[in-house]
């Protein structure tokens, strides 16, 4: 084990970077973004190095740092990661530089300086690292709430037309959840004080405590509500479409990609190990919410006319899958859920990014304002399609592995919920392909149309085998053309790593799984499930 404080550094570097960016004088916008990119890449490097330093087969929590922080409350500034947290750190490390590049040319609304944007972004990164790296419940809570502030400003200052409403809604929803959790956090502390003689917030110590089942249920609910709001489960979800739609693209990516994962992460890290009895007792109800989310949000996604809202709803459906995987209490499903958290960050992140690229061209978020883009911007369409396919969990993309693991792992313990959720994969195909067809396929139409029809004959033709065909198929008037440029180099630089990850993790996910599984197995034994995974019901004979 290394003595270098990896996690502390990963929290400190972006925080210092944020301060530095904020301190830049007015007018040094380009320096600000270069600095932001540099810092975020440094964090990525740190995350990779930390992963190398991490021993997948070793202690549960590694790279630990612990400093006494508020002794009166028994609070330590304790950091440490298990495999689950580590992959989330990797996800943060990857997404933030991508978001920085994606937001490179983001125009500030009004006269606001983009320096603030970069500063908030880096501060958000710092907080997000903290929330996953904390091994002290109090510290976790602090990061959990503090994380709201930068995101609040990102949405509120740099978002769309209804950004005020969305920002406040986001903040209040999260705050309500957070405050309910605070009650549970304090309650947990009090329980620990009664059990251990001295109150503590240390995760490992709290895990050992046997809590009275009734109290467990209350505390579980306290945590659960916060997490269910954060990783929105139906019916706590209505803030996400608003926030997702109004947030600037970069913010939206981090919002659904990472920030909301704190909720599902919280289920795994806190709800299950700390309140195993309550988790088992209440799991059926959670599963109802999860499955309802999968189906309900998918249907809603189809009904959206705003692309960003649509993507937000798809995320809600995905969070349903993740919750299903977590509360099925099998190693396979929960590993899948964790993997899902990573994959969803990448897939939906890319979907948001590419939708953002489209919106940047047309200036409208409405599906109905686009059409036939694929003909003239094949790269854009291609990336859109890949993101969409990853979102519908097509095999070969990363999401498939996780969705498959979630479902196959949940089926043995929760067959009914799993069957219902599996229906969701048809709906997923529907919502992705519907929006793809409407925007990318069909004849050119919508806001991107060239203002005046030109008389030059279209060389691209409508799909014939011969030149004669082309003339035959071409309507009498020159067909409408779009004024749309394909992806720029910068946009390609944004999309390429994401696409690469989608494919790579879709084909060879095992390294990540190997990283995740020990932590999941530990969680499973905390919650009383067999960490070795599902044991088949029928005797197996003659298998390899």
């Amino acid at each position, binding site marked *: 084990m290394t003595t270098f404080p990896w996690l502390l550094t990963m929290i400190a570097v972006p925080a210092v970077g944020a301060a530095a960016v904020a301190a830049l004088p007015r007018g040094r916008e380009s320096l600000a973004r270069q600095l932001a990119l540099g810092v975020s890449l440094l964090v990525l490097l740190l995350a990779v190095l930390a992963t190398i330093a991490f021993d997948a087969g070793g202690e549960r929590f590694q790279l630990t740092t612990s400093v006494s922080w508020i002794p009166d409350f028994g609070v330590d500034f304790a950091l440490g990661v298990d495999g689950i947290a580590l992959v989330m750190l990797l996800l943060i490390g990857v997404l933030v530089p991508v978001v920085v590049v994606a937001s490179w040319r983001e125009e500030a609304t009004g006269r606001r300086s983009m320096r603030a944007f970069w500063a908030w972004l880096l501060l958000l990164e710092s907080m997000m690292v903290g929330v996953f790296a904390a091994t002290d419940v109090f510290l976790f809570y602090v990061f959990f709430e503090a994380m709201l502030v930068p995101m609040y400003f990102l949405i509120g200052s740099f978002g769309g037309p209804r950004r005020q409403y969305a920002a406040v809604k986001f903040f209040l929803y999260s705050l309500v959840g957070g405050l309910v959790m605070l009650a549970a956090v304090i309650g947990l502390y009090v329980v620990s004080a009664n059990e251990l003689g001295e109150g503590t917030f240390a995760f490992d110590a709290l895990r050992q405590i046997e809590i009275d089942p009734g109290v467990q249920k209350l505390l579980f609910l306290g945590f659960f509500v916060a997490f269910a709001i954060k990783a929105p489960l139906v019916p706590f979800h209505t803030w996400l479409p608003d926030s997702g739609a109004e947030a600037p693209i970069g913010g939206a990516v981090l919002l659904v990609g990472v920030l909301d994962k704190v909720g599902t992460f919280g289920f795994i890290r806190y709800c299950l190990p700390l309140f195993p009895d309550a988790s088992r007792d209440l799991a059926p109800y959670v599963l109802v919410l999860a499955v309802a989310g999968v189906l309900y949000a998918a249907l809603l996604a189809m009904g959206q006319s705003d692309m960003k809202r649509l993507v937000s709803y798809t995320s809600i459906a995905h969070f349903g899958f993740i919750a299903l995987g977590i509360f099925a209490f099998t190693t396979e499903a929960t590993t899948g859920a964790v993997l899902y958290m990573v994959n969803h960050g990448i897939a939906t992140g890319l979907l948001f990014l590419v939708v953002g690229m489209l919106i940047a061209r047309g200036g409208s978020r409405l599906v109905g304002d686009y059409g036939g883009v694929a003909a003239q911007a094949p790269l854009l369409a291609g990336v859109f399609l890949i993101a969409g396919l990853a979102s519908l969990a097509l095999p070969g993309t990363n999401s498939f592995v996780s969705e498959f693991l979630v479902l196959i792992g949940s089926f043995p313990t929760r067959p009914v919920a799993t069957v219902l959720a599996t229906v969701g994969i048809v709906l997923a*195909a529907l919502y992705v392909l*519907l929006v793809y067809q409407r925007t990318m396929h069909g004849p050119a139409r919508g806001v991107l149309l060239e203002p005046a029809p030109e008389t030059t004959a279209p060389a691209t033709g409508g*799909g014939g085998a011969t030149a004669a065909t*082309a003339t035959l198929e071409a309507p009498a008037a020159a067909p409408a053309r779009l004024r749309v440029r394909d992806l720029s180099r910068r946009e390609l630089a944004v999309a390429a790593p994401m696409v690469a990850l989608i494919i790579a993790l879709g084909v060879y996910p*095992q390294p990540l799984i190997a990283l995740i599984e020990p932590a999941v197995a530990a969680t499973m034994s905390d919650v009383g499930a067999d960490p070795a995974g*599902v044991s*088949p019901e*029928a005797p197996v004979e*003659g298998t*390899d």
Partner: protein
Amino acid sequence: METVPADGLIAASWLLIALPLAGAAVLLLGGRRTDRWGHLLGTGTVVAAFVLGLLCTLQLGGRRVDVDLFTFVSTGSLDVQAGLLFDPLSAVFVLLITGVGALIHVYSIGYMAHDPRRRRFFAYLNLFVAAMLLLVLGDNFVALYVGWEGVGLASYLLIAFWHERPSAATAAKKAFIMNRVGDVGLALAIFLMFAQLGTVSYDGVFGAVGTLAGGTVTAIGLLLLLGACGKSGQFPLQAWLPDAMEGPTPVSALIHAATMVTAGVYLIARCAPIYDETPTARAVVLAVGAITLMIGAIAGCAQDDIKKVLAYSTVSQIGYMFLAVGLGPVGYVAGLAHLLTHGFFKAGLFLGAGSVMHAMGDSVDMRRFGGLASRMKVTFVTFGLGYLALIGFPFLSGFYTKDAIIEAAFDRGDGWGYLLGGVAILAAGLTAFYMTRLMLMTFFGRPRWEPGVHPHESPTVMTAPMVLLAVGSVLAGFLLVVAFPLESWLTPVFGEPEEAEHVVAPLVVSVLVTVVMALGVLTAWLFVGRREVPVTAPVRVSPVTRAARRALYADAVNESLFMRPGQWLTRALVFVDNRGVDGAVNGLAATLGGSSSRLGRTQTGFVRSYALSMLGGAVVVAGALLAVTAG
């Protein structure tokens, strides 16, 4: 039988998949730089794969070789190894896919020569070949599933290749969605296997399937069948396949006739150990096959779109194959043999149709064809041979394989056997009818061409594959049934063929089928060949014709049963979410705001009212304290 580790060339059989995949990757990532030679690369990879596949097959003998590649997913008790299974069954499919695939790639060089997106077309085709090979080569159900959805993606991309056409885009989406419905079944089947057996590898599942309860096996079988129905365009998921004809014709030939749509047959054949355990599921397979072959045949009789006719024909022919594999051990080989011959003649027919369309300015309306026999001799001859093979003209390939299926159906010996056999024979007559109708409307009679259309024969690069496929159509049946029996090649997979006890003598069946076929041809000549074909379809037709034109209302049923309620539900839920769920939250906020301003009114600004509130408060406080102490 024992699985042996890979050796020799077979160890490199992953290249079969990797080659076309690499081709697709190069073509997609290479961008315009690869425009000039992209089609050659695309064709080259498939040809190379064919050669490799051929060599592997020669090396295979009767063995069952497992190629272990890497650990795909391993967590808990789930262990999915990425591995290939090269056995006689997959070898047959590899050869079909790469062989027919290579021919169609060559054909496409000519067919797509003028399309600005030809490079991408070849990329997608390569992608398809790779996915299809994975589907048939995977040694576990997850690999199968990956290939399964992979071909679905390729199919989507290729149907929507001319995506400016809304109909193409819609058809592609429809195909994908209906396939996904089937995929749910396949996925659930895999989940069930894992839950019950703890494994998803073929060896593991097939080895232990006997230990399962009968109901479970039936469930698995039915779920697999759902998947197979989706992919193979079988009832009730058949409606997407005719629409898929929106794709370029080579696509229809390769994907929607020769290979992908037969994946369902492959699946059932591959899962023979499962179906052997569950007569119930087999019966359902039979029923699906019988229903579909009738639906396809009936709908095929009333189409005016040359590709649609062929598409319904495909639906119907795959119905035959399902019927065959549903019969159990006696039918597997018959079904697969028909699959192979069908692959040849249907691909040939589609390529011929493509050639015709090529000549007719991409028109597919047979009512505007006619008299093409003289203008397009090669096309006419190759198409004609395919036609004869399809309708089961004696001693051409369809004759051998279709008869085998019908025989096997009769061999059940019970009433169901006669019913199925009867249906199959009837459908054979219908097949003869609609195909003859197609021939007559296209190649014979007076030209009814659109003005400005000047039919001409296609270039050699297109006709050569057609010729090769025509040769295949003629000979394949004889080769597979008589000369080099498929049955013995597949013995390692399905076991020794038992000598069937024929209920009806094979000769009788053959004669019967041939007579019915002749009747079909005759009827078609009577209805179509003798009279002038109107250039627009008559409106006043019998309800039967109307129903057949609309494919027995499959789309209407889907629309009214799923699409419209779905849309309604979606709209209702959007309303509920905005007004109900979000409305509750916003309502709470509004309530708080409202009570805030109402309560705020109590802050009147009058000192005396403040004093009153204080006095009231004091009374309450005192009262409360007294109550507490007294109580």
